[in-house]
């Protein structure tokens, strides 16, 4: 009964690690190459990319929590609050 919850939470934690790795890569990237020309990546581009990574992570985490909570409801367990859900964003 709890195995499903534990493996779902493991998936969320792995998604979080992937997100942090992606953000680290974005922050560390100084330049990008377009048609043999190396251009500096400006901060607003990085900020937009990071926001996209965060949005994708929240979407995936929500899917995992929704599936897990459905199984928990069927098993008669209380649902777990998704801490990554941001209201009004």
């Amino acid at each position, binding site marked *: *009964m*709890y*195995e499903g*919850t*534990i493996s779902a*939470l*493991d998936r*969320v*934690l792995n998604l*979080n*690690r992937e997100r*942090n790795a992606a*953000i*680290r890569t974005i*922050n560390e990237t100084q330049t990008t190459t377009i048609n043999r020309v190396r251009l500096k990546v400006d*901060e607003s581009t990085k900020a937009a990319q990071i926001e996209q990574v965060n949005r994708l992570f929240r979407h995936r985490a929500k899917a995992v929590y929704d599936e897990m909570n459905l199984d928990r409801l069927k098993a008669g367990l209380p649902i*777990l*609050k998704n*801490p*990554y859900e941001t209201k009004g964003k």
Partner: protein
Amino acid sequence: MNINLKTKLQALIDQYKEDMAAYQERFRAELNHFNDPDVKRRYSEIGLKETIDEKIAELKADLEALCTTFNQKAKAIVDEAKEQVTSAVMGGTTNRPADHAAMVANALNFLDRETAETLTDDVAFSILKAFTGDYDQMALFARIVEAKVGPLVDADGSTTFPKTFGTFAKADSMLQVFDEITPITEAIFTNPKYDGVDGVTVGGIYRGLPTDGYLEIANWATLLELAEKVDRAIFAES
């Protein structure tokens, strides 16, 4: 049966520490970013401070969400272990015969005929031996016997009716450990963090990295000790 509760909780704590270290690096990197002259140039002095404060609030919200997930996993691990222990010690509850109610009524009748002096451990065992694997039922009988003969636990904490209530007492003490474990896991990873000595100076202000306090570390040690108790008790039982 081996439930390995301590191993699972230790692995969870180790995983948390790794993720916490990675988070602190991200905190440092994202704040250091504001020390870049190209970035600082984009903001006024007040605007820079506000942007930094917003970034810190966002990072702390992320940390809180991460800690909440770890907390949820800790509780799931403990709940799983409790379910395994409960089904091991309360197996009799689910395997009751069809005439269980009649057997209980007969047992109560026999107990009623005994006095405090005549109701010894051997006599009680002869009346209740059919129920010794049924935790719930033995809990009820323990109250009745206790009302007749006095406390069933001596000064050492051992039962005074070992033959009759020995198994029940062991099961009871195992389940009581969970009464200690459960409140600790409520906030095992979500106690307030403090601003550590290690940090980063940004916008002229020193910002400490969010760090676990002594309470959290002490709680981990206590939780692991209790988990080991459960593992040893279950292993001895099987």
